[in-house]
Structures are given as C-alpha cells and as structure tokens.
C-alpha cells in the first residue's frame, strides 16, 4: 500500500513539472492559435540558464531559487523576442507558416545552446534544503518531489486567479474562446499576444529550471518534452489550464503505474490515451468545440490551373535531364537525388490532402513509416524480396490510413492535425518499443535492394520512375473529379454537401490515397540506406513533409517537389558546418518571413507582377 502511495506521489511530481511546461504551451495556443514547437526549446534553455546561474550564484537557498526565477524570466524575454522578431511578421501568413517558423527557432536554439554550453551534459546541484527524503508510510519520498508538487499546485492556483480575477485574464479567456470578438472589442492585439508569449515562455523556463535537481541538463530535452507536452495540451483541451493539469496527472500516473505492469510500452500507453480522448472528445477533456473551417488555414493562390503546355515541356525536360544525369554526376549525388525523389513523393502525397483538400496532417510520417516498416518486415520476416516488399508497402500504409483516417476526417482544422499526430506517435511508439518485431530503437537492418537493383544507378532509376509515376498519378487525380471534389470541400464544405457530396467519405478516401503514396515513398526509402528505424515515423519526419510543402509553396503543383529538393540538398550542404542547424533554422525562418507563399508560390507571384508591369 505504502509503495503505491509513494508511486502515486512520484507520478504527481512528474505531473507537476509536466504541467508547468504544458500550461504555457496551452495558453499560447489558446490565444494565438500558434502550435509553438519552440516551447520545448524554451524549457531546455530554462534548464541551461538555471544551471549556469545556480552554479555561479552563491550556494544556498537564495542562490538556487534566485537562479530558477531569473532563468524563467530570461526565458520569458526570449519568448517575447521570438514573438516580436519572427511571429509578429507572419500573423497574416497561413497559420502553418508560424508552426514551421517555430521549428526553425528550435533548430536555431539547439545550436545556440550547443555553442554556449558545449555538447556535454550538465549536472546541477540539488536544491538546498530539499536534498533529502521524507518517510511517508514507510516509503522514502524525495523532499524535492513534494516541493515540485506544491509548486505545480501553486502555479495552477495562480493561473486560475490570473485568468478569472484580472482584466488581462478575462481578455485572454475571451481571445481563447472567440478570436473575432477580440478584434471587435478594440483591444491591442499585439500587446496581448506578446504578453501571452511572455507568460507561456516563463512557464516553460520555470519547468526546465526546476528539472536541475532531478536530472542532468542535456541538449535532448527540447524534443523529448515537446511531444509529451502536446499530448497534455490536446488531451486537456487546448487553452484550458485546468484541463492541462488533469491531463498531466493522467499521463504521469499512467506512466508511473504503467511502468510496473508494462515497463516496455509506456510510450504507447500515453499516445493511446490521446487517441481515445480525441476520438471521444475531439476538443479534449475540458476544451471547447470550435467551428473552424479547415480551408481557412490555407488560403492563398490556388491550384486551379492545369499545367500549361510550357510547364509540361519544362517538366518533361527536367525528367529527361534526370534520366541522363547518372552518366555525369558522382554516385553520391545519385543517392541524394534518390532521396529527393522519395521525399518529393512523400511531400506530394501530403500536398494532395493538405494543399488541395485543406486537411492538415501533423502526422503524415505515420504512412511513410508504415510503408518503410511494412517493406522491411516483409523482406526480413516474409522473405518476399525487394520487389514484392515495395509493391506491398503502400498497402501497409494504406491500411493504416484507412483506420486512422476514419477518425481523422471526422474532425477539421487543428484538431484533425493533432489527432493525426497522435496516430503517428502511436505508430512511432509501437515501432520504438516493440523490440522483438521492429528492432526497437535499433531498427531493422539489412534492408537492401535485390542484387539487380543494388547498384546505385539502377536504384536511382527505380526511385525516379516509381516516384515520378506516383507524383503524376497524384497530379492527375487533383484534376480529376475526385480531386476537384476535395478542393470544392476545402473551398466550401457547406456548398459541397449541398450538391449531394458526402464530404467526409471523400476526405477519408483522400486520406487513404495519400497514405498509399506516402507508403510507397517509405518503402523506397528503406532500401535507400539499408535500414528502417523509428526516425522514419518520428515527429521531425512529419514536420519535414510539412516544411517541404509549405516552403515549396502549398498552392503550387511543383512546390512540394522544389521543397524536397531544397530540403535534402540544403541539409547535405550544411552538414559540413559545425553549426548547420542554426543556419538551416535561419533559412527556414527567413523563408517563412520573406516568402509567405513558399518558394515557388512567391516566385510565381513575382513573375505575374513583372508581367503585369510590362503590360502596363
């Protein structure tokens, strides 16, 4: 009995620190509707800064708590700087650009931290005065855990008072519930957003700083926390503080007790909870439903025009060039280009539902990963050979899309995006934790092409032909009645239902089609490097696809292709630099700020303007 109570307290302490981070994320999302990936980076910065302060300040309670508080405030200021310098410039852009920009900030902060603090882990001191354990019913419970539990409750109470007893809090609640109303009330929106970012970032910094006495500070804290924090925010209800608290407790206790029963699948449990909640209550335990048209997320130039004769000739020319390339370039570039083809198909499949259908997926990697794992498992366990494995990979992914899509298409906008992320995370956690079958973190090795295709040049042609075929098929579907119907559903869900179309069913099919092609890309990808591992389904892979589509130009046909090309080559070129992530991050932020229509979209607009200027 005493053991279970101790375990409960342990869970509660984890819940408290999780709550601090997640509540900040939730507040920021609630008011600004920005999915802030940099929140995890702020958490990490909070820990690093606090480490430096606490070790530099005189040892003692004042030094420790002073360091923690200053660190939280400094992180708050950094959050404000990000809001003013980056996000404020792109509030007018499609909402997803803000997400991509914050991912650029993630990369930037990672390298800044690496540069400032060096790559080694940092072990900070324990909290003075709370470095022992107390006996509770015969079990030893660390005093610091109790401190964290109390702090979590204090912050919860303080936030509640702030939101329910102050004018500023009332504004925040109003903004969370109804953004339009905010404009109508004539409130200084910029100031409200900035202050919300400050508060949210302070909470992230505080959460990080409070971790020092528990674990060493490392450069992996950012992405490690962000996925869990998203789960909490979504399960609790976006924008709901109490919801975030409840969700933190559920997730943490589940983990604390799950570890006793299923020590190997704790991660799967967490995402399973997220899926169950989203299926039953799409807007979370305490969130409020929101009537948001998904199409709004992606306004801008449209896909409406079929590629003309010149464009077709240009594409044909590009294809011909790719056909003769192997005789000219080094073999390594063939590998890179094969990767470009694979990612271009992957991005085009996301574009199919996102650009054309208005359905945003934060978890498109699920289908890439299912294809990759499907092919690898068929090859290794089924001994099917490469050909059959690649042929069946899309089916594995399509089956996943059939099941996940059924639930996803019942939602729209950001809720749909979050549910798709939850499903992707389930695939990821299963891949990560079912070691017997998938090799767990090690992945499956030996996924090499059949002898006839093992030459780089042959495999290059194989990927070229299959990916180009896949992309053409997707493009053709865009201009077929099915693609048109999807776009119609994006433009006006009301009207499309009023002309007798079952939109949900069409969206579901679209999800499956996108899954099939993403699966083909995944299957081909596995054989490219001889290994399939959880990275193929991880969040960054989903973000990669989003970035390729958005940076290339979501409302253009070749945008995703250009995005894939830019992405793969940029990354490869930059890898040689020590701080390549920072450069990459800056480029991403730069594109978000300067080219709100993406590379291709913005160039296209420039060309149109130039033509107009010539004409006049």
């Amino acid at each position, binding site marked *: 009995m005493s*053991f279970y109570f*101790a*375990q409960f307290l*342990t869970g509660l*302490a*984890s819940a408290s620190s999780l709550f601090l981070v997640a509540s900040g994320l939730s507040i920021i999302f609630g008011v600004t509707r920005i999915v802030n990936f940099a929140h995890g980076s702020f958490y990490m910065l909070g820990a690093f800064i606090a480490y430096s302060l606490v070790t530099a300040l005189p040892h003692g309670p004042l030094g420790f708590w002073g360091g923690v508080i200053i660190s939280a405030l400094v992180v708050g200021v950094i959050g404000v700087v990000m809001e003013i310098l980056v996000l404020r410039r792109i509030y007018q852009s499609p909402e997803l650009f803000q997400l991509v920009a914050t991912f650029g900030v993630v990369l930037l902060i990672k390298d800044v931290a*690496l540069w400032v603090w060096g*790559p*080694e*882990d940092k*072990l900070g001191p*324990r909290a003075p005065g709370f470095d*022992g*354990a107390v006996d509770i019913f015969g*079990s*030893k*419970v*660390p005093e*610091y*855990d109790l401190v964290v539990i109390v702090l979590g409750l204090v912050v919860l109470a303080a936030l509640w008072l702030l939101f329910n007893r102050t004018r500023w809090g009332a504004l925040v609640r109003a903004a969370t519930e109804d953004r339009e109303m905010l404009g109508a009330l004539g409130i200084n929106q910029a100031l409200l957003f900035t202050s919300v970012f400050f508060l949210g970032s302070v909470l992230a910094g505080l959460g990080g700083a409070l971790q020092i*006495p*528990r*674990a*060493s500070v*490392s450069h*992996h804290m950012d992405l*490690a926390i962000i996925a869990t924090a998203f789960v909490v925010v979504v399960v609790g209800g976006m924008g709901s503080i109490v919801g975030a608290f409840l969700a933190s407790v559920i997730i943490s206790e589940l*983990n*604390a007790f799950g*570890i*006793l029963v299923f*020590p*190997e699948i*704790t*991660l799967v449990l967490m995402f399973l909870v997220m899926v169950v909640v989203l299926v039953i209550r799409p807007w979370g335990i305490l969130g409020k439903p929101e009537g948001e048209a998904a199409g709004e997320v992606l306004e801008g130039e449209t896909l409406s025009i079929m590629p003309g004769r010149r464009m077709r000739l240009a594409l044909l020319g590009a294809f011909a060039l790719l056909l003769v390339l192997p005789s000219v370039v*080094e*073999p*390594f570039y063939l*590998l890179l280009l094969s*990767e470009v083809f694979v990612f271009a198909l992957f991005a085009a499949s996301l574009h199919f539902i996102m650009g054309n259908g208005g359905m945003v997926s934060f978890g498109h990697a699920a289908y890439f990963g299912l294809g990759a794992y499907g092919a690898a498992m068929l090859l290794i366990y089924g001994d099917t050979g490469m050909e059959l494995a690649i042929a069946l990979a899309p089916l594995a992914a399509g089956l996943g899309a059939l099941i996940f899509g059924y639930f996803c298409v019942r939602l729209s906008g950001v809720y749909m995006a979050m549910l798709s992320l939850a499903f992707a995370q389930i695939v990821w956690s299963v891949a*990560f*934790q079912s*070691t017997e079958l998938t*090799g*767990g*973190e*090690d*992945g499956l*090795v*030996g996924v*090499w092409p059949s002898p006839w295709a*093992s030459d*780089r040049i042959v495999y290059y042609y194989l990927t070229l032909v299959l990916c180009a075929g896949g992309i053409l098929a997707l493009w053709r579907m865009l201009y077929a009645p099915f693609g048109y119907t999807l776009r119609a559903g994006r433009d006006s869900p009301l009207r499309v239902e009023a002309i007798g179309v079952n939109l949900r069913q069409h969206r579901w099919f679209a999800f499956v089609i996108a899954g099939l092609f993403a699966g083909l890309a995944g299957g081909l990808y596995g054989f490219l*490097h*001889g*290994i399939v*591992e959880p*990275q*193929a389904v991880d969040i960054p892979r989903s973000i990669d696809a989003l970035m390729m589509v958005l940076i290339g130009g979501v409302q253009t046909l070749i945008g995703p292709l250009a995005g894939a090309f830019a992405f793969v080559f940029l990354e490869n070129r930059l*890898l040689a630099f020590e701080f390549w992530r920072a450069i990459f991050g800056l480029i991403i932020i730069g594109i978000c700020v300067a080219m709100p229509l993406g590379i291709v979209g913005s160039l296209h607009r420039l060309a149109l303007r130039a033509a107009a200027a010539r004409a006049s």
Partner: protein
Amino acid sequence: MTKSRLGRVGSRLAIATSALVLAATMGVAQAADPIRIGEINSYTALADFTQPYKKGWEMAVEEVNAAGGVLGRPLEVIHRDDGGKPANAVKIAEELTSRENVDLLAGTYFSHIGVAVTNYSQQREKLFIATEPMSDDIVWKQGHRYTFRLRPSTYLQSAMLAREAAKQPAKRWAIVAPNYKFGQDAVAAFKKVLKEERPDVEFVEEQWPALFKIDPGATVQAMLQAEPEGIYSALFSRDLTAFVREAELRGLLRDDITFVGLLTGEPEYLEPMGDEAPENWIVTGYPYYGIDNPEHKRFIDDYQKKYNEAPRMGSLVGYVFIQAIKAMIEEAGSTDQEAMIQAMKDLTFPSIVGPITFRGLDHQSTMGTWVGRTAVIDGMPQMVDWYYAEAEAYFPPDEEIKKLRSGE
C-alpha cells in the same frame, strides 16, 4: 589573350612535369597523398564520450604524421557527426565512400548505429573498423569479413562483471538497462554468465527505460518494490545520473544491495556525478589516475599537457584506434582493400595498454578493460581495487562463436 592563356597552361605543364620527375626520382611519389580514414561518430548526440575520443585520435594522428606517417603517407581522418541517427550514419558512410574516396570507414558510438554501418560495410564491401560500439551482434550474429571491432564488447565487459558478481552473496537480482541493442546484449550476457557461475541466482525485476527517456523516480520505486539483493545497471550518461540521484534519495543505494554497473567507472560517466557518485559499485571503467605502465603513462601525461584535462575512456579508445590503423596499414603494405582485410585478421600490435590482437575468428580485438569498485576520495569519484581484465579469459568457446557467425 589566347597567347597568354596558352603560355600559362604551358608553364603549369612544365612545373607539373618537373615536379613529377623530381618526385619519381626521390621515390616518394605518394608523399602528398594521404591515407584517408572516413570516421563517423555521434559527436553531438553523446559528446561526453565522443569528444575525448576525438581528442584521442587527433593526438595520435599528429604523432604518427610527425613521425613520417604510415608507409611514408600522412594519415587523414575525415570525420562526420551522425547526430545519433542510424540512417544519417549510413548516408554519411556512402558519402565518405563514394565522394570522399576514403580508404576505410571507422568509428560509431551507439550500438545501433554501429550495427547500421557494419551492415552498410557488408553490403558495399568496404572495410569498417568499429571503434566504440559494443553490441555483440557487430562481430557475432551480424559479423562479416569487412568489419572489425576494437573496444571490448558488451559480452566481454558483462562477463567480467558477472564473474565478480558471482562472488557476492546476492541471489535476487534486478536489472535496469536502456531498451536498445546495447542494453539488451549487456543484460543477456550478464544473465548467461552469472547463471553459469551461480545457478542459484534469480532475476526478480527488469526495467527497460527507453534510451535517454528514463523516468528515474518511478523506475527506482519499481526496483525498491522488488526487494533485490543485487542490481545490475547498464545505464550510462544522463540516464545513469538521473537514476543514481533518485536511487540515493529513495534509499535504494543500501549497503546490503550489491550494485554492478556496466561502464559506470568510465570517467565520462563517473566524474560528472562528482561527490554524488555511488560508492562500492562493481564497475568497468578507466582508472587513468592509477596507471603506471610507462607507455600508457606517457600517453596520459601528453594528453593532459596537450588538452589541459584528464583523458577519459574515449581518449584511450581514440588513441588506440589510430595505433591499430597504423599497424594494419604497415602490415598490409598498401591501402588496397583486400590487403588491409588480410592484414587485420589476427593482427597483433603493441598498443599503450599492451599487445592487442584482432582475432581472426570473430574480428573482435582483445583489448581489455579495468574492473574495480567505485569510491569517492576527497570529493572525487574514482575506481579502487581495480585490475586490468584481459579479454582473452572471457570469450565464450570458439565453437559457440562460429555458430553465431555461421551466416557469414
């Protein structure tokens, strides 16, 4: 204009020709042509070990080159950071092989990355010296003719610890290990050897936190619940520090529980814990502060002078890695792939830790490691009562290995 360009080309031709003639007459035509080693490692994902490792090989390369290189050619290490991602490592391996035209591949730290790259080396038939990854699969189940491994494997180090553990009274054992190849291999080997030595032991609890995602409080609490008499930990780096802190607070670090920690004595993992380091754990590690072998001592002193810090296990592995490469190429007489592979088989070379052999049987080196107990002396964590465990004494029988490598 045409004239001047012609003139320039002409003069360059002349210089080049004379240089060639000069070089040919002096017999060192290859002098400017370095031996290129493509090195892949997790320089940012696990800096604690890999940064000292880099310093180690950098120092060795400088020494070798200052002494005239190998076969009269300087060594050049082209190193890349894999970011801790296996697929990245494979891509880098391809780039190093096909674009940088390296003579051989080397490196990797994490076991799963080592496995990914050795699989690549098999597929592309490229020599790969796995310097640090410890998974047994690299030389056994997935062993093949193109990969050799330097550092003592999880099996060897776990066997060393299991034999020590067998001498302890503990019968009820609990296990905590990161849930990936390294942890799984380490646990399997420990269990196997301990059971062989002590059929009466039982394993009462296993915790498998994901690598670098440990929930230390809950994990420690679960171990307390199992009431073990002995605990075997294959945790390292941030997982280890977090676990130790909680274990200390929650009263798991009791005198009546025998702790056995794989790698825990390596300075990269022991020293960051400072005076909080656990005492009296039976560990493998690197007690550089007590080494008196003169060759080895010289390395430690030079290293300290050069970098103004103490060497770590990584530094030693990095240094010995270059010593091995030098010996191998000298033996091969060229950088021809087949010659190098033949040279590696049963290559014995005098390293700073004594003679090391790359066994022809399974391509595993016989480099050993140090076994001892942890202690905190004047606030500094150290290993005491240690001895250098020669690897030879811990290998399983040849027949068993041959069976494992039957897929070769």
